[in-house]
């Protein structure tokens, strides 16, 4: 009987990650690193045209080229390839075009696959792919969202329209608020603005790659995916392969950000090719292919009308969206804008709200999840509108927010968009951020620069945000017609030595789950951090799971781990009671020790593990195993929030913009590993800032992606970003016992409006009212020039509060 030792709590410790060991030494296991005996390689032939009828494909030269095993076209695969799945029909009437993995008759975006070469080497496949001669008959191309919505040219003629679906939320109908038209009519101020959420490319660093081994009866797929479990079931449903014959493995995955939350044509094709030739096949895309062929994000036109009274109280908000689907509907393409529908009210108390979104097809690659997925768009719009309101009323942007936000004592709070926010303290986060930022000092500096006519003006951008995380309560998903639930699975296995294996249904690709889960389990079982192994990403290992997206891993997946761990403890207590000749009810468990209440009698977790393994002397009828699994379905979303402040310098001579200072105070509830949480925030900020300043996927009118490489699509590197000041407040979530909320998307969601608000704050006194994103130097400069030339109409310089 061992003596209890004081052990330091693992939760809350800045543990360096376990998973780094192989990644920093080059022993990584990315899909493209996999080589199997006899493996063949695929190359894709992609349409250079955005919309065309395929009138002929001559594959003869390619088929007889050196090393080529087979060439496949859409016609060859038509009978077996099915249609790429869309798992979120947002309305029963949604129009969904057929989406073949390999185009059969027509192509609808530049980059769509029209033929596949299977060869003995990647080089041979690439060489032969040039020999395939495709004849196209041009069809009219529609790339502009608003134009497409007018149906002058219908991209999928069988659908009869480019409008896929229209989805509405109305607080008057939902009973969560009043009628928005009435509210706006009775408002003292109504502000109407239109914002463009430009199209973005997720730009994960690892290009997508898939290896399929069709060994015997089983098909094993390794893929650079966020969603091995969803992929498995979707492949089974799409291709009619028995699910039980499919094993999907997501090995090391080099980033996703929603971009790998997809079932891809390339995965379907690699599987079909491997099955045809009966040999392992690999396909790894080039970055050029990623840019044009992997789904993009955002791409919405937002029109908002916000009503308010002169004291700053917002009375109602009307939101109308056009959302660009691209040419097809991917896995959850149609639902992305709907994820934003619940967030346009942000952290505020509005009395009336209406949201209407129309999803529209264009001849571009389809859009789908990208970090934040719907919520950054909503947050951007409302946070921009709050600044517009502040300007209109001559109020400080912080004051306008204070006037409208939910006070901390009002939680839980049911919003006008029908969500119940469980907890939060916007005052605390904002106060802390203002202090760290030196808000007053920077306002003084701003005034100084304005008065002296400094060519480099300073602006302060505010963004107070919340987001719905922990996707998602299954019943809510059901109500939204999403094709699956939002639960998560975990298993905890106790080895004879007391080491613990944790199986998780989430699928990490950089988030540090192995480390965080180890910390959770170490604390709950009182075992050393080092003794916990975390297994994931293989449907044969983690037999159930809903994978990683929507800041769900910890709030949902982590909770499943907790639930499974609790079951282990319950079982172990029975064994401990038996060993200690006590009643189970009298057993207490703490710090890895089982003890009899009120005595110094105890056994360690390791002792119990070994005794259970030996099974020589267990309670009658006790199954000799402590292993447990659990499936956790959240009762509600979690609602991280925060206040982000950006001091932006604008060089009025060149339009160049620089982040002078960036402070954010996020409240993500309890923190398992602050190192990891800070890292998530940093990375999120970088992506959100990049949307504000640098990134945009641009197509020309014929549908060619002009930003088809990192030379033109501007992903920032180290000198392009500032040092961030990251801090936190802690208001635990009340809907899970860990008190966690999720942090994966926070930085991205909050930072974009902070940056743009900051830029406008710097140059608004010059008469500039808006700069479309990304706020490139030329756009900023042009906005200043336009304001100067129409100077007479420019509003009187607003005195900075």
């Amino acid at each position, binding site marked *: 009987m061992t003596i209890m030792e004081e052990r330091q709590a693992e939760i809350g410790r800045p543990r360096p990650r376990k998973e780094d060991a192989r990644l920093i030494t080059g022993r990584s296991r990315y899909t493209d690193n996999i080589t199997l005996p006899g493996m063949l390689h695929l190359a894709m032939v992609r349409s250079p045209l*955005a919309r065309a009828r395929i009138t002929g494909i001559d594959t003869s030269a390619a088929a007889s080229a050196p090393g080529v095993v087979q060439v496949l076209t859409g016609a060859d695969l038509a009978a077996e390839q099915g249609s790429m799945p869309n798992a979120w029909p947002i309305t029963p009437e949604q129009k969904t075009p057929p989406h073949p993995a390999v185009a059969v008759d027509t192509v609808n975006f530049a980059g769509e696959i029209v033929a596949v070469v299977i060869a003995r080497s990647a080089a041979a496949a690439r060489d032969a792919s040039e020999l395939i001669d495709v004849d196209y008959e041009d069809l009219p191309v529609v790339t502009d969202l608003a134009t497409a919505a007018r149906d002058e040219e219908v991209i999928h003629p069988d659908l009869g329209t480019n409008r896929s679906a229209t989805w509405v939320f109305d607080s008057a109908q939902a009973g969560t608020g009043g009628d928005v038209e009435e509210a706006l009519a009775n408002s003292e101020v109504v502000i109407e603005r239109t914002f463009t959420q430009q199209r973005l490319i997720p730009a994960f660093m690892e290009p997508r790659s898939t290896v399929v081994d069709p060994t015997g009866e089983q098909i094993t797929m390794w893929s650079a995916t966020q969603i091995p479990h969803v992929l498995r079931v979707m492949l089974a449903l799409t291709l009619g392969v028995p699910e039980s014959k499919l094993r999907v493995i997501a090995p090391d995955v080099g980033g996703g950000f929603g971009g790998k939350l997809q079932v891809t044509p390339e995965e379907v094709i690699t599987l079909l090719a491997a099955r045809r030739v009966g040999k392992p096949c690999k396909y790894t895309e080039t970055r*050029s292919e990623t840019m044009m062929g992997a789904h993009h994000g955002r791409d919405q036109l937002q029109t908002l009308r916000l009503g308010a009274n002169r004291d700053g109280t917002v009375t109602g908000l009307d939101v109308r969206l056009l959302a660009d689907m691209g040419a097809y509907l991917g896995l959850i393409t149609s639902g992305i804008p709907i994820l934003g529908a619940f967030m346009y009210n942000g952290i505020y108390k509005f009395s009336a709200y209406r949201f209407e979104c129309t999803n529209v097809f264009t001849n571009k690659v389809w859009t789908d999840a990208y970090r934040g997925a719907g919520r950054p768009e909503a947050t951007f719009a409302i946070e921009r509108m709050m600044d517009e309101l502040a300007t209109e009323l001559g109020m400080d942007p912080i004051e306008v927010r204070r006037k409208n936000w939910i006070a901390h004592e009002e939680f839980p709070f049911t919003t006008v968009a029908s969500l119940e926010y469980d907890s939060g303290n916007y005052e605390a986060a904002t106060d802390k951020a203002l202090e760290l930022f030196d808000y007053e000092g920077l306002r003084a500096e701003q005034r100084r620069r304005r008065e002296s006519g400094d060519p480099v003006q300073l602006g302060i951008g505010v963004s107070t945000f919340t987001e719905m995380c922990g996707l998602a309560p299954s019943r809510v998903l059901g109500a939204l017609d999403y094709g699956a639930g939002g639960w998560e699975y975990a298993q905890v296995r106790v080895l004879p030595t007391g080491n613990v294996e944790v199986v998780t249904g989430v699928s990490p690709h950089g988030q540090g789950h192995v480390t965080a889960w180890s910390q959770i389990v170490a604390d709950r079982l009182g075992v050393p951090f080092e003794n916990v192994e975390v297994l994931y990403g293989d449907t044969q290992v983690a037999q159930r799971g809903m994978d990683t997206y929507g800041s769900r891993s910890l709030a949902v997946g982590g909770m499943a781990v907790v639930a499974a761990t609790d079951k282990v403890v319950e079982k172990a207590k029975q064994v401990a009671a038996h060993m200690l000749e006590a009643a189970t009810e009298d057993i207490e468990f703490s710090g890895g020790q089982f003890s009899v209440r009120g005595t110094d009698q105890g056994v360690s977790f390791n002792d119990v593990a070994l005794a259970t393994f030996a099974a020589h002397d267990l309670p009658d009828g006790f199954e000799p195993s402590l292993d447990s699994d659990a499936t956790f379905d959240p009762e509600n979303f979690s609602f991280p929030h925060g206040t982000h402040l950006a001091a932006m310098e604008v060089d009025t001579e060149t339009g160049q913009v620089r982040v002078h200072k960036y402070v954010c105070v996020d409240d993500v509830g309890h923190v398992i590993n602050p190192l990891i949480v800070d890292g998530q925030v940093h990375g999120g900020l970088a992506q959100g800032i990049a949307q504000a300043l640098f990134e945009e996927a641009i197509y020309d009118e014929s549908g060619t992606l002009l930003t088809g490489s990192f030379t033109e699509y501007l992903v920032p590197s180290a000198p392009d970003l500032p040092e961030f000041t990251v801090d936190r407040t802690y208001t635990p979530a009340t809907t899970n016992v860990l008190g966690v909320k999720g942090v994966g998307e926070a930085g991205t969601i909050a930072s974009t409006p902070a940056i743009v608000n900051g830029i406008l704050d710097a140059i608004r006194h010059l008469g500039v009212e808006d700069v479309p994103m990304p706020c490139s130097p030329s756009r900023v400069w042009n906005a200043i020039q336009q304001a100067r030339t129409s100077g007479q109409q420019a509003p009187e310089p607003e005195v900075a509060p």
Partner: protein
Amino acid sequence: MELTHHFEVPASKETTWQTFNDLEQVVPCFPGATLTEVDGDEFTGQVKVKIGPISLTYQGTGRFVERDEAAGKIVLEASGKDRRGNGNAGATVTAVLTETADGTAVDVNTDLDIGGKPAQFGRGMIQSISNKMLQRFLDCIRSKMTDEQPTGTP
């Protein structure tokens, strides 16, 4: 993209018209172009484009879509694809001939459509480069009409 050019030749409208209608003379004037076959109003050929290290070979066909001698209007359409699948290119060239005191004025409007990888490589240069290539093309045609050597300067 739309490109417009204007030039004048000290030749009669009739001579100019004939030159413009002679594919064997016109097509090879385009930098890098070779004519492989002429069949009435239609032709096949290829254009080899070299821009620094980039080298593209478009193979394709073209035809006269309009020849209105009375109006002095010729519309030539050509389209091709890069032999390595890098992209397609199409052009519709509309030339309008007008008699002047000293000869003939030629107004050329070119609607050029370049798709695929070359368009991505742009940084705005595609238009400038295309403009220069067309200028060389027209200089060459003009020289044929005036029996001069191309001056090389626009």
